[in-house]
């Protein structure tokens, strides 16, 4: 019998459909449609060179939103060795966000003609100025004045430097976002952490080689491409100009200087001068536009200090500058592509579109944020400060290093060399925090250590130390993080190359990093004579290395909020809210024993009456009445038969009697107590309704025993032996119930109902499945039971059985009471109870 109708199921389906529609609608509202972008590919002819006499054809693409306009423009520059194609995805994305984005292959790259001049003011800068002229003529581009478009520049590395240099040379540039680029190319390729300048710097040979190689990599394919476009039709073969085999597409003058440097491993004045001309350092104070500097933490080519120098130079002009150190750079890492895009777009929204948008903290640093609790992948955490402090930190900590003077050897030929990072391969090695490829060759390194840290230390910026190295030499200084029992890790694989002058004592600025040293870790300063990435003296030598001062000065930026904040508010609010919701759930809703209308009627004391049913009504969920205004009364000592055809509502009535289902109206009183779920008067009721219910894995005896224990009543009240006698199971009593036949379960269930000899015994079809002798026995038991002053209610469709067993009878049909009274009286009117019954229920039988 189920009280769940189809109505509620329909309602549930409707609710699910509504929820899905709502979710779909929200998605539609929240995810904006793509703005269509139109792309124009064209070649733009420019004139450059020191004398403005060189014609160059630049391969360009303009991406503009199809709707609206005119739009602010953005020039997106590509990295070294790449071309405009590499910028297409980024350009399309920016264009879809409302910008006219021009990408171009710089001279000497891709399908553009000309030779690489390393972002020279005479060449590339002149080119981009003419691209700005071109943009000013486009109808899609917003103008500030005739010939002056509203334009920003962005790009990484080579493309970042051109943004800085163009901004210095062309006042029409309104905002720039240079990424992972240089301030001084000479200092980048000839670094010197002793601060004595590039002229005395250590040649970064591995990176320089890669850099130079990238400029020649596509020489043949480019030549072929040019031929395919123009020459092939005229039957010319691919023509590779003289010297390109060695110099690639570099300007011959640059090529020559490089080769001289690479051969000697020492900077030449011409090289330094050439590189300076291609550097923002040569136009210091001339970049005066809002600048967002995005520098990679994993970058041994253009380390953090390059962005720092740019930031200082631009900020000195009063222009707004913001700085982000992200997990990326030329040595790889996450890259944070989406975030960098958002930052770039935000910067242009603010300074080009002039929207009042927030552009995040003035200084942001990406830190390892542990693992994602869901995916267990390493995640990044962005910390921010309101002010860019530079690489000297907002405060410093002084740590004491210990270590005697040590001798280190410079191997002949500079090999084998120690390793700090492998240029260009950092990304393959995972790069992030944990994995360190650093390796120091034995005999070539001096080591100085701090004591284990008693509290963690978040280093942000460049530490400094004084060293004494004799005789003057080239050494590499690294700061390792050493945890107990482990080889140290070199944060970001960065080493500081130092050219120590003959005097022997230098102040060394270590590479700027952001790194957390945990409790118990030591900081280890290592000084090595070699590094694979740099050119080192080939002559064998022995250096004496000692600390000039034991104090290692470490910059910190506490404003970045390194200290762990407490758990977020919702960690306490959510459980609290849940408790409130739970309390509301428990205090509202239909409650057991909600007064039904009939309750209001004053009921006289009926404590001696076993059962009084008044106006009992129960409706199925579909509205049909299962029991309809049923009233009757059972007196002590009666054996009452509850008779009726299937569906008459007998079992529903008995279930209400047991407090299993709650009546819609009316009430049941047992010994004067109103029945509701769990009413304690039910303890005087023994019941067997609609089949037995046992734990199939337990024996019959265990079932009865545990059931009695579950009632919580004393064992001597159970009258277990009398009950077991009725069950008459013999040895089967010790077998699991699941092995029982239907009849055995039936008898065990009746025995369970009779446990404790209840004052009111209710049995639903008790003789089902019993054989005739057992039926006769059962009949005797019930009559005897009533004879002790207790009361028995039997529902049965075996009319003859009722006639033989019962003293009184209640006849039901369709939930209604049809007749009630003594069996004798009913028989008196008809010859037989069965006839009476059939007469009463009419054609239903």
């Amino acid at each position: 019998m189920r009280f769940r109708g189809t109505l509620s199921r329909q309602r549930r389906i409707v609710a699910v459909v509504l929820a899905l529609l709502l979710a779909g609608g929200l998605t539609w509202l929240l995810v904006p449609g793509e703005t269509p972008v139109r792309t124009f590919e064209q070649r733009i002819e420019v004139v450059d060179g020191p004398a403005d006499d060189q014609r160059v054809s630049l391969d360009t693409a303009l991406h503009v939103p199809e709707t609206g306009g005119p739009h602010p423009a953005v020039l997106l520059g590509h990295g070294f060795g790449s071309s405009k194609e590499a910028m297409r995805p980024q350009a399309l994305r920016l264009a879809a966000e409302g910008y006219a984005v021009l990408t171009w292959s710089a001279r000497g790259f891709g399908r553009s003609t000309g030779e690489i001049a390393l972002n020279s003011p005479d060449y590339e800068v002149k080119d981009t100025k003419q691209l700005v002229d071109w943009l000013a003529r486009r109808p899609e581009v917003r103008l500030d004045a005739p010939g002056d478009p509203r334009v920003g520049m962005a790009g990484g590395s080579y493309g970042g430097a051109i943004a800085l240099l163009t901004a210095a040379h062309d006042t029409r540039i309104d905002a720039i976002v240079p990424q992972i680029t240089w301030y001084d190319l000479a200092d980048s390729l000839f670094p010197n952490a002793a601060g004595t300048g590039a002229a005395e710097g250590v040649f970064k040979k591995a990176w320089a080689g890669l850099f130079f190689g990238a400029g020649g990599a596509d020489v043949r394919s480019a030549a072929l491409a040019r031929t395919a476009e123009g020459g092939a039709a005229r039957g010319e073969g691919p023509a590779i100009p003289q010297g390109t085999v060695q110099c690639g597409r570099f300007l011959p003058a640059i090529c020559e200087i490089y080769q001289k440097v690479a051969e000697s491993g020492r900077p030449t004045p011409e090289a330094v001068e050439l590189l300076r001309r291609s550097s923002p350092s040569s136009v210091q104070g001339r970049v005066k536009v809002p600048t967002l500097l995005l520098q990679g933490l994993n970058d041994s080519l253009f380390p953090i200090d390059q962005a720092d120098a740019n930031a200082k130079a631009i900020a000195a002009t009063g222009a707004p500058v913001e700085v982000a150190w992200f997990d990326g750079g030329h040595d790889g890492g996450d890259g944070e592509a989406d975030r960098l895009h958002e930052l770039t777009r935000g910067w242009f929204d603010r300074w080009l579109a002039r929207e009042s948008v927030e552009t995040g903290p003035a200084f942001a640093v990406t830190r390892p944020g542990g693992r994602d609790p869901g995916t267990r992948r390493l995640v990044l955490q962005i910390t921010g400060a309101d002010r860019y402090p530079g690489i000297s930190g907002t405060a410093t900590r002084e740590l004491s290093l210990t270590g005697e003077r040590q001798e280190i050897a410079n191997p002949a030929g500079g090999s084998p060399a120690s390793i700090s990072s492998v240029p260009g391969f950092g990304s393959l090695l995972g790069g992030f925090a944990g994995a360190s490829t650093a390796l120091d060759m034995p005999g070539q390194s001096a080591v100085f250590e701090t004591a284990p840290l008693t509290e963690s230390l978040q280093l942000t910026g460049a530490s400094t130390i004084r060293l004494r190295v004799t005789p003057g030499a080239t050494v590499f200084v690294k700061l390792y993080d050493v945890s107990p029992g482990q080889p140290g890790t070199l944060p970001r694989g960065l080493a500081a190359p130092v050219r120590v002058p003959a005097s022997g004592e230098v102040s060394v600025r270590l590479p700027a990093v952001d790194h957390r040293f945990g409790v118990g870790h030591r900081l280890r300063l290592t000084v090595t004579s070699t590094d694979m990435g740099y050119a080192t003296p080939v002559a064998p030598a022995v250096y004496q290395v000692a600390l000039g001062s034991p104090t290692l000065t470490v910059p910190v930026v506490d404003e970045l909020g390194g200290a762990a904040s407490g758990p977020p508010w919702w960690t306490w609010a959510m459980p609290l809210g849940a408790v409130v919701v739970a309390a509301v759930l428990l205090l509202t809703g239909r409650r057991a024993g909600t007064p039904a209308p009939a309750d209001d009627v004053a009921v006289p004391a009926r404590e001696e009456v076993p059962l009084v049913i008044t106006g009992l009504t129960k409706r199925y969920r579909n509205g049909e009445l299962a029991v309809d205004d049923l009233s009757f009364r059972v007196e002590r000592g009666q054996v009452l038969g509850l008779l009726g055809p299937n569906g008459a509502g007998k079992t529903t009535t008995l279930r209400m009697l047991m407090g299993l289902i709650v009546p819609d109206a009316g009430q049941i009183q047992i010994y004067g107590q109103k029945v509701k779920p769990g009413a304690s008067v039910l303890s005087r009721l023994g019941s067997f309704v609609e089949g037995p219910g046992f734990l199939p894995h337990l024996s019959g005896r265990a079932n009865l025993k545990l059931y009695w224990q579950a009632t919580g009543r004393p064992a001597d009240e159970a009258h277990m032996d009398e009950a077991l006698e009725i069950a008459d199971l013999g040895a089967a009593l010790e077998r699991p119930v699941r092995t029982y036949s239907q009849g055995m379960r039936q008898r065990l269930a009746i025995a369970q109902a009779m446990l404790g000899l209840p004052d009111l015994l209710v049995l639903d079809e008790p003789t089902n499945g019993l054989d005739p002798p057992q039926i006769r026995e059962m009949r005797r038991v019930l009559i005897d039971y009533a004879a002790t002053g207790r009361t028995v209610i039997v529902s049965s469709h075996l009319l003859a059985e009722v006639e033989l067993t019962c003293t009184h009878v209640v006849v039901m049909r369709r939930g209604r009471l049809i007749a009630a009274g003594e069996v004798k009286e009913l028989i008196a009117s008809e010859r037989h109870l069965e006839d009476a019954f059939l007469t009463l229920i009419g054609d239903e039988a």
Partner: protein
Amino acid sequence: MTVKTAPGYRPGRTLPLRVEFVRQFLRRRTLLMFGLLLLLPWILAVAFMVGRPSQGNRAPNLSDLATASALNFTAFTLFVSVGFLLVVAVAMFCGDTVASEANWSSLRYLLAAPVPRGRLLRQKLVVALTYSAAAIVILPLMALLVGTVMFGWDDIQLPGTGQTLGAADVLPRFGIVIAYAMISQLVVAGLAFYLSVTTDSPLGAVGGAVGLVIISNIVEAVEALGVWREVLPTYWAMAWLDVIQLEISWAGMIKGSAVSVSYAVIFIALAFRRFRTKDVVS
């Protein structure tokens, strides 16, 4: 006659915990589940004997270090069980408890005994949670024993960095791990218990709770959800790994506990609300 109840009947004495423990313990599925939990560490140990974990260049994970020590082995055993096996165990103990009584029809006789409905749920919940807790305790204990026998008692090597921590220092931390594992399973327990009250099918209740975990795991993989994933019931299930680090980080476990406890409280309240007036028709 003035006696209102049967002699010796007191509502507060019905369905004593001891009786419910016995009723549940003698069930085959209870014994099978505990057997499986006790056997699993042995199976894992044998698996590791067949093929030793390789140590590559990358940062070692829990699996690489599983045979390093008894504690490592225990951590690994928990790592592979928390996501599913223990979920099934908890869902079974909490989901089966009322639904199986309904299924056997014994529920109506308990209610007519009468065991008051609130008390019946409370006693069943206490017993189910106790069995669930026992399952969560017994597995690492067995793993510790197996690990000690097979791989020796040694300092633990931390995943990710390979650093070592003294066994004596780390052992108490496993108390935290187990406690957190219990708390994080509360959400499963709560849902299974609620389903147990609403359905007559034990399989439906257990399956429903396990299904929730599966769905939650799938949704969790959608990183586009961002911070919303943090309120998924399983998102913080592995936060106890933060204990097996040089420095314990509590943030994940605090959030995970908040989420799990919140869901559990609501589910359990729903179960009581539903059962209080439910028409028992099974």
